[in-house]
Each structure stands twice: as structure tokens, then as C-alpha cells.
């Protein structure tokens, strides 16, 4: 049953899909746009506030970012901030917290000092905080004991700030993006919920047919799939992105019983691991209780806390010799092997909390098992992409654009932060492909510095 034809059809109503929906509706001359969402509401999976760290990853305290990468993420992160300020969403869905990257031990201290020097021009608000300053700002990371009488023996230093917006409920932002898109434009901006896309076909007239599980068929001149790990699943079904596989990594969190840390505390990241190092964040959806995590566990399914998708995982993994080689290369490194094993144990009841606390003590030395509980229902799945040609695990986002009017995006962290930047990239492709007009002046004025 064919329902409607659109200029652009977006598959996936998370933060990436709604950001594109917003930009297309507000800044281009297209005549219709449609968003298809598999579930009953927007952002029920990884964009949901409980599924991620709620962090604006601007690149200042993310120690694995190079300066070049930070220049890019700074621009896209500022777009999130500008959007929220434009619609007066500060202190509603966007918040300001203190944040820092903490170096522990000589090697990390040396690294943080040098990184601060390298990055301070790009982020002039950054400060270098020594033990004395940290005693004032975040005393729990300084002391060995709860009474705060003994200072931890290893040297520590942090680079951080308490003047910036740091935290966003990306679930709520997805809703805001969709709402503002529909308000901003006089054109049809349809959103269909409970609409699971199962297949996409390219027709002879260069348009696309999007087939849904309920039998509905939508057609569009351009399709963008922003469906997390399912983007690659759908790409593979169309014969695209066969050089990629997807490794879903589930992240879980532990929550303190009450307000614990004053702000976000990130640790220095091991570059061998594509996942953020353990960090502590005040949770804006849990009365500021501190959330420690995430852990990282390979999960043989594409969606967390939803039934099924096991078979989709095996199809999306695209298993072959190259995948074996990537796994072999990863697991032959003892750091990664230990990390994988340890993170598996973090999910095992009875011992998980005890083991997790050992790790989290690097942030708060006085933390003990009674301080935290496993955050039930928190966490998501990061669709990490495996590049079979280069035989390596890709860090960050991946996009497949065959150039014929369809784009597939996989956007693990920092995908939420870069949602408006990624949407801008796709919007420009669409504008060019469909011969549309685009109000660049207004776009830059609204969303960039």
C-alpha cells in the first residue's frame, strides 16, 4: 500500500534523524519531508537520556581527541548549544556543570599538562587545576578516605572548566528538534511512529521505495537512514557498505545513592580502546546523582532493552575472514583482552559491583560498594563500525553515501554531540542532489559562532 511521496524521507527518529529533519524543514526549499520511527516515540534507544552520558563532547576534556578532531567537534558541539539557546532550552534540557579531565600518576599528569598547553588556544576557558584547587572543586577525587583527612599518594592534575554548557538530555532535544521542525515550515513535515522499515529499493526513476513491516510503502526522492546499527543492516540489504561490519557495544552505568561529584570527571583514555574511559557525571534525569560508567560489553543484538534483533546482529556483523582478523588483532593485545574480560565481569551479578568499584576508585579513591548501585535500565548500544578493508575497528562515526540519493549513517559517540553538524553535511548533499535552495546565512547565524 503506497502512502505518500516525499522529497526526503528519514529513517530513524533519534537525535541524528531529528536534527536532519529540523535542518531540512527550516533551512531548505524542499516541499516535503517525512520521518519514520520504529517505536512509539522519538529517541527511545540510544538518544534517550538514560542511554548515554548526556555529555556535550566538545573535545576539551576528551583526552583521546587530537587537536584537529577537537576543532571539528567544537564547531558541531557549539551547534547543539546554539540550538538550545535559540529555543530557550537552557536549564530545561541543557545544563552547565563543572567538568574536567583528570590525570592520575606521573605519566598522565605529564600528559594533561602538555595537552592543556596544546589545547588552551582552542579552548581558552580551560584551566589547569592542581591538588589544592581540586580540594575546593572536587574534594572526593583528592582524598583517600571519606573523612577527607588523607590525600591520595599519586600525583594528580586536571584540566577543566566550570563556565560552559556541558550536559544535554538528547532524548528531550530530539523531541524539541522535531517540534521546531514542524513549527518552522509550511510544508508537510510528517512523523510516523511504530513504523519499522524492513527494506529499501531503488526504482528505475531514481526514486526510492521504503517498505515497512506493516506493509506500508513510502516513496521519496532522497532517503537518509539514521537508524543506529540498523543503518548498516539496511545498507547491507541494498548491497551497500559490504566492506563494513557492526559490533554493538553495550554500555552500563552505576549510580550513587545521592549527589556525589560536583561535576563531570573524565579520566585519561587508553587510545587502544574506542570507548570513553570510565567517567563520573551528575545525572540530570536522576536528581544530580552521580552516574559512573560506561562499561563496554559486546552484545549480540542491535538494540538494548528491546526484544529481538539477535539475527540482525549476525547479519550486520557481516562475518568473514576480515572480521576474524580484526578480532584477532584486537584480542592479541593484552590491554584489550583484559579490558574485554573485565567489562564482561562488570555485568556478572554478585561480583560486578565489587570489581567496578576497583576501577572507579581511580576517580574517587574512597568509593566503596555501598556507595553505588547498578543503574537498572540505564545504558545503550554503541554501533561500533568495523572496517573490513582496513581491517580495523573504526573510532567514532561512519557514513555510507553511494551518491545516488541515499545515505546511511552510523553514529556512535560522539554522534549526539555532532548531530547538527552531521545533519548539515547531509543537508548540503541533499540540497545539491535535489537542486534545492538553502538559507545558508540564516543557518550559520542560528547555529554557528
Amino acid at each position: 500500500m503506497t502512502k505518500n511521496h516525499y522529497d526526503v524521507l528519514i529513517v530513524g527518529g533519534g537525535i541524528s534523524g531529528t536534527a536532519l529533519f529540523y535542518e531540512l524543514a527550516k533551512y531548505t526549499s524542499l516541499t516535503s519531508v517525512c520521518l519514520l520511527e520504529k517505536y512509539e516515540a522519538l529517541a527511545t534507544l540510544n538518544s534517550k537520556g538514560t542511554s548515554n552520558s548526556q555529555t556535550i563532547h566538545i573535545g576539551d576534556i576528551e583526552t583521546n581527541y587530537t587537536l584537529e578532531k577537537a576543532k571539528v567537534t567544537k564547531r558541531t558541539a557549539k551547534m547543539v548549544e546554539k540550538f538550545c539557546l535559540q529555543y530557550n532550552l537552557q536549564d530545561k534540557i541543557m545544563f552547565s556543570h563543572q567538568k574536567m579531565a583528570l590525570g592520575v600518576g606521573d605519566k598522565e599528569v605529564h600528559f594533561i599538562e602538555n595537552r592543556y598547553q596544546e589545547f588552551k588556544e582552542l579552548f581558552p576557558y580551560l584551566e589547569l587545576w592542581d591538588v589544592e584547587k581540586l580540594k575546593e572543586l572536587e574534594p572526593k577525587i583528592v582524598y583517600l578516605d571519606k573523612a577527607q583527612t588523607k590525600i591520595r599518594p599519586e600525583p594528580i592534575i586536571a584540566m577543566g572548566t566550570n563556565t560552559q554548557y556541558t550536559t544535554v538530555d538528547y532524548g528531550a532535544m530530539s523531541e524539541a528538534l522535531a517540534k521546531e521542525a514542524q513549527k518552522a515550515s509550511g510544508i508537510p513535515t510528517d512523523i510516523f511512529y511504530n513504523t519499522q522499515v524492513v527494506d529499501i529499493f531503488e526504482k528505475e526513476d531514481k526514486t526510492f521505495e521504503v517498505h515497512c513491516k506493516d506493509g506500508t510503502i513510502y516513496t521519496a526522492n532522497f532517503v537518509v537512514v539514521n537508524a543506529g546499527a540498523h543503518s548498516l543492516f539496511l545498507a547491507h540489504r541494498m548491497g551497500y557498505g559490504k566492506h563494513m561490519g557492526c559490533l554493538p557495544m553495550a554500555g552500563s552505568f552505576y549510580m550513587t545513592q545521592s549527589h556525589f561529584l560536583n561535576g563531570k570527571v573524565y579520566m585519561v583514555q587508553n587510545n587502544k580502546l574506542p570507548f570513553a574511559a570510565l567517567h563520573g557525571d551528575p545525572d540530570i534525569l536522576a536528581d544530580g546523582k552521580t552516574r559512573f560508567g560506561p562499561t563496554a560489553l559486546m552484545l549480540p543484538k542491535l538494540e538494548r532493552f528491546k526484544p529481538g534483533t539477535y539475527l540482525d546482529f549476525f547479519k550486520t556483523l557481516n562475518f568473514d575472514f576480515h572480521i576474524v582478523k580484526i578480532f584477532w588483532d584486537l584480542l592479541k593485545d593484552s590491554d584489550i583482552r583484559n579490558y574485554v574480560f573485565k567489562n564482561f565481569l562488570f555485568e556478572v551479578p554478585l561480583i560486578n559491583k565489587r570489581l567496578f568499584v576497583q576501577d572507579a576508585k581511580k576517580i574517587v579513591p574512597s568509593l566503596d560498594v555501598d556507595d553505588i548501585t547498578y543503574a537498572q535500565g540505564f545504558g545503550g548500544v554503541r554501533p561500533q563500525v568495523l572496517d573490513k578493508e582496513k581491517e580495523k575497528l573504526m573510532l567514532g562515526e561512519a557514513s555510507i553515501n553511494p551518491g545516488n540519493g541515499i545515505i546511511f549513517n552510523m553514529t556512535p559517540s560522539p554522534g549526539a554531540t555532532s548531530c547538527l553538524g552531521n545533519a548539515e553535511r547531509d543537508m548540503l548533499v541533499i540540497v545539491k542532489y535535489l537542486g534545492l535552495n538553502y538559507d545558508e546565512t540564516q543557518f550559520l547565524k542560528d547555529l554557528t559562532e
Partner: protein
Amino acid sequence: MQKLLYITDQEEYVDHSFIAPLFEIYLKKYLSVDIVYFTEFKSDFTCKDEYHYVVPARYKNVLLKELKQNNIDLHSYDFVMVRNSIALMKHVLRYRDTYHYKALYRFSFPKRKVQIKCNEAEGKNQFLKRCMHSIQTKKEMKIINSCDAFLPTSKKMHEIYRPEVTIPRIICSPAINPAALHEHQQHDGDETRFVYVGTLDKIREFNTILDAFSLLENKSWKLYISTRDVEFAHTLIEEYPTIKEKIRIYNAKTKDALLALIAKTDIGIALLPDLPIYSSSTPVKVFDYYSSGVPCLMTQSDHTSTIFTDERDAWFSDFTIEDITEKLNYLLSLSKEDIMQIGAKGQARLLDVKNYETLAKNIADQLTAL
């Protein structure tokens, strides 16, 4: 101009020792030099500028592939030099025929051997490690012999630690950087200031030096120590309550900070036990001292005595409490002007026989002749 890719096992932010000027400045007069550093913390490849690449440490095993993927033209290199890492050297050798470069191995210091010695000094049983070391060294010799040239820090280091290496040898020793000489700053204090720079551990037996200091009757002196092993230094001086007030411990973070600290002192100390790991080359700290015009009290070795002359441009002492005490007493009797003159002569001597300008030319000539 021929092109060299220098792959060092050092970290991106490490203050790249005294030998860095050789590759960063002086060799560039003769060769185009690109340098690869590693990062344990950042996730992506970075071109710091046209000549410096920073590669995440996880790509060490596939380094050349990673460079290629980041548009570095490996065919453009005439030489690829690896510093200290045999695994990296093996990787570079694997692609030598593909990219047609000469493979060079730079051996700066016998780190593994030193680690074993340190552990033994701490009373740890190192039998297994010694066996493993012998096996590994044999394997390494094979790999090094597959290279086109071997660049040890000194002739002695080659003869003692890698004697079976038979490929052409090019000495790549530390030297003085003519462009980074600090003028000696005469301090206001009446006392004579000594300075020790570098690692402190059991194997270096710094307690022998402190024993000598504690025997001095003349108390008009201070000892400045700059070391990364601050904790060890503090623990050690606690054992010397009569002189601990005279000792100041620093951890100079950069070469500039270190040279500035040295410049405010009078006499450098490079006294080390009579072990081949120390006597097979001139300690880098000696060049640090003389760069600031500070003369040095050092242990005499085949190496140091080919450069310096006792009482003319340096002072020699055996590594015994008695000898060091006697020498310290003598030094305390000298005027500041006398000391400064020795420092100036030593600096001039190093500029004459061990400076990066001439060393670079020598290395470039030998590489071209390969």
C-alpha cells in the same frame, strides 16, 4: 635532497632528550627528515606539521600501513630509521623491498639490561629474565644484521652490548647543541652549588655521593638534584639528616627548565659506578651541564677521558667515598672564577669535538655512502 623517516619509540609529549636537535635541526641541512612519535592517549593519526607525525600506539604493529592510509608517501623515503624498538624494526624491514628504502637501526641505550641490573640491585632474582634477555638479544642481533646500518650511541656500546652486529656502523652519540648554549649565571650565594641531573635508582648508588658530601668539613655548599624519581630522592636524603637541609630536589619538566636550573649552579655531578652501561658512552647530563657553562665532576672512563682532561676542562674522580670526598674538598677550595673558567674550557672543548653540527654532517655523509 634524500629523505629520512625517523621512527622513535618515544611519546608525543616527551621532552625528546638531547639528541632531538640532531634530527630536528642539524640533519635537516643534509636530509629531509620526517619524524614519527607515538601517543598512548589520542585515538587518531595527527600531522603536527609537515614533518612530524603522531601515531596512536595501538598502530605500532601496522605503522607503515597506517602512514600510508594517511597519505604519507612511503616511496619517497631513502632511509627509514627505527629507534630502539626491535618489533618496529622488524616491521620496517618487512616492507624494505616494497618501498626501496635503506633500513637503519638506532640503539640509544641497553634499556633491558639496565632494568635487570636495577632489579638485581633491589635484590630481585633475575635468573629467568637474564636467560630471556640472552635469547632475545640473539634474536635481535639477527634482525639488526638484516638492516643496512647500525647506529649505536658509541663504539663501546656496540662492542659491549651488540658485538655480533656486523653491518656498517654509524656512531650517533649525544653532543652539544651549539644553538642552545645557556650563559652561566653567577648566583649571589656565597656557597658552592652542585647539581645532579638524571635518574636516581639503586644501581646508580647515589648514596656513595651523599656519603662523601656528609663527610665534608666545609659546609659552604648546596646540592641541587633534578630527577623524575622525586620520591626515591626524598627517601634517600632522609637517610642523611646532617646534610638534608642542604639538598634541594626538583623535577624540571622541560629541557629549557632544566638548563635554566643548571645555569644557576656551579658544578655538575656525573659520578657513576664503574659499570659498562655507564662507561660505554658519555652521560647526556655532561652535555647538559656544559651547555650552561657548568663544569663537571665525573667518573673517568675510556670515553670521558678522550674528550676531557682532568683539572683543565673537567674533574675526574673514582667512584669511592674517599676519592669523591677529597675531590669535593678540593672543589670547595676553588674560587668561582676558577670554576667558571673550567666550565668555559669544557664547553669550548665539546663544541670542538662533540657538537651536533659536525656530527650531523658525518652521519649524513655515511648514510649517503651506504
